[in-house]
């Protein structure tokens, strides 16, 4: 019998929690980089098309599935999917909705712990007066856990455990804890982001120095927003836009289903979903585009940005740029920047904890506290290798092997596979004949009927294209050339799923290496890669076994598992 008696406190709390779930580090770090790499302003056109044809429909699908499953007291995807399809296999597909969250939370909490640590370092003024190289080196030293930057031994581990404890404590307060965190975190994130965005928008050419005389924030904004319409015919740009849609909306994870499963059939989901979705878009398109790229271009020049745009800029470059604003404002800007990243992170990582908790409460009668602490313990077990296992290159750059593997398989591929499966299940197995009225039940807005057809045909098709695009990614990701020369064979990129499975990239590097020491390091890396994958497979298998045990328990107690 389920011990789950959770309920949302208020509608606004639910929407903020959903928006907090969607708003993550990618809004500030991934979106502008993707735009820069895919045609600048033209990227926004496929991005918005994908938001309308894939993002919004997927949000509605997930909210509807969650609320429908909740009617049968299911609060995690294995048995939510089970209520919708006759085929027993669906509940094992639903395992993705727990697995992805556990695996992603394992490394996501590590990034979150960096932001905690950097808030602390910004307050005590660690970065004041440091050069650009020294700030970048600080990050590498931080990741090399044995070398403390504060005097705290194993600082990175300490902050990771602290961050995990904070997440687990909030989760142990149930949905009320999550809701409270969102009600504090999301508004603060908007305030912090607003402050930095205004700074990015007004920086202009005031950041130019003798070292970077041509630096201008306007160049950054020009680069980000000037439409290059020729890139619209490039499939790579469209695939990048569709891919970004996954990361930004947190669809294909199982968190939206879980949050929505606590709603009653007469309560709205249609308006809630678009409201939370647009809040995420506001943070991404408005705030996300006005911070990192313009500020970096304003001090270092657009050429530097083009060469170095990436995730690392947040920690390796931004503190140096803030330092140019004078010691007091730089400390404040550091607190705002890393604070907003922390709030973006924690509201997402809390969401990742709820599917596991819902599952353990529903199926194994765990109390809320036990469910939360079991999640914390699992994350610690799966996550510690992401902190402890890395290699340091000769230039000091840290290669986080487990981290990268988790990110690729759980944080990227699993989302696409699960979203594709759920879109097919909802539109074709459960059927829009039942699914559409489910979505409209209690709706506070009129949903245009065209979305019925979009959900049936276009969304699954787009998802299939994204999946196949990752499976058969051509050499260099250059779709235009690959499609033109399709008759001459199809060279797969080492980043394609097929080549990743075969470890082709690292095998090629080993084959071309001549230094025995380097070969030994590469071989060690390959062992770590395989170990990380083994751990992920074991996690998936372990959750699948729990789902099987739960199914047997349900059968014995004659509990209804399926509505169809």
């Amino acid at each position, binding site marked *: 019998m389920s011990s789950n008696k959770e309920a949302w406190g208020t*509608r*606004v709390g639910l929407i903020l929690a959903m928006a907090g779930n969607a708003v993550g580090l990618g809004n500030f770090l991934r979106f502008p980089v993707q735009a820069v790499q895919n045609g600048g302003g033209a990227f926004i056109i496929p991005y918005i098309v994908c938001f309308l044809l894939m993002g919004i429909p997927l949000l509605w699908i997930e909210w509807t599935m969650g609320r429908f499953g909740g009617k049968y007291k299911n609060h995690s995807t294995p048995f939510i999917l089970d209520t919708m399809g006759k085929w027993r296999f669906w509940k094992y597909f639903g395992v993705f909705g727990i697995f992805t969250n556990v695996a992603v939370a394992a490394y996501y909490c590590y990034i979150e712990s960096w932001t905690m640590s950097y808030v602390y370092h910004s307050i005590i003024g660690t970065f004041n007066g440091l050069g650009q190289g020294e700030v970048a080196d600080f990050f590498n030293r931080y990741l090399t856990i044995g070398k403390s930057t504060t005097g705290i031994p194993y600082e990175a581990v300490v902050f990771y455990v602290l961050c995990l404890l904070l997440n687990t404590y909030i989760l142990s307060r149930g949905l009320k804890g999550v809701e409270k965190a969102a009600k504090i975190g999301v508004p603060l994130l908007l305030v912090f982001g607003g402050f930095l965005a205004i700074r990015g928008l007004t920086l202009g050419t005031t950041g130019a120095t003798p070292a970077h005389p041509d630096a201008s924030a306007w160049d950054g904004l020009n680069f*980000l927003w000037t439409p290059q319409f020729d890139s619209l015919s490039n499939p790579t740009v469209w695939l990048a836009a569709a891919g970004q849609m996954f990361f930004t909306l947190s669809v294909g994870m199982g968190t939206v289903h879980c949050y929505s499963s606590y709603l*009653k059939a007469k*309560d709205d989901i249609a308006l809630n979903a678009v409201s939370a979705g647009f809040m995420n878009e506001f943070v991404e*398109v*408005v705030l996300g585009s006005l911070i990192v790229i313009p500020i970096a271009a304003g001090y270092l020049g657009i050429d530097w940005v083009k060469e170095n745009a990436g995730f690392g800029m947040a920690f390796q470059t931004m503190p140096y740029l803030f330092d140019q604003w004078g010691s007091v404002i730089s400390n404040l800007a550091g607190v705002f920047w890393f604070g907003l990243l922390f709030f973006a992170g924690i509201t997402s990582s809390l969401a990742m904890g709820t599917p596991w908790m819902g599952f353990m409460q529903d199926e194994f009668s765990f109390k809320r506290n036990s469910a939360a602490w079991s999640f914390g313990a699992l994350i610690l077990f799966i996550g510690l290798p992401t902190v402890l296992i890395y290699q340091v290159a000769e230039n000091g750059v840290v290669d986080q092997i487990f981290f990268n593997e988790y990110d690729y398989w759980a944080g990227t591929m699993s989302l696409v596979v699960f979203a594709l499966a759920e879109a097919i299940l909802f539109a074709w197995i459960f059927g829009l004949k039942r699914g559409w009225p489910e979505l409209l039940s209690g709706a506070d*807005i009129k949903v245009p009927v065209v979305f019925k057809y979009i959900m049936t045909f276009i969304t699954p098709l787009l998802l299939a294209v994204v999946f196949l695009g990752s499976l058969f990614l051509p050499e260099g990701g250059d779709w235009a050339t690959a499609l033109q020369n399709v008759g001459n064979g199809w060279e797969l990129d080492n980043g394609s799923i097929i080549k990743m499975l075969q470890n082709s990239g690292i095998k090629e590097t080993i084959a071309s290496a001549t230094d025995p020491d380097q070969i030994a390091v590469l071989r060690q890396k390959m062992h770590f890669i395989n170990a990380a994958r083994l751990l992920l497979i074991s996690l998936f298998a372990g959750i699948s076994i729990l789902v099987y045990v739960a199914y047997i328990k349900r059968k014995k107690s004659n509990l209804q598992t399926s509505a169809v």
Partner: protein
Amino acid sequence: MNTSALILMVTVQLTVTIFTIYFFVKVLRTPPKQEPDSYDENDDVPRV
């Protein structure tokens, strides 16, 4: 900033901002459904 970049930036950011505010205000202005609804902070009797 060049004109085309400025036009695109202002158009996109304004559109997204207007939609965000519109939907959120609609949420705030929509009267709550009859009890028992999904939210417990407005309950007259605390849930067990």
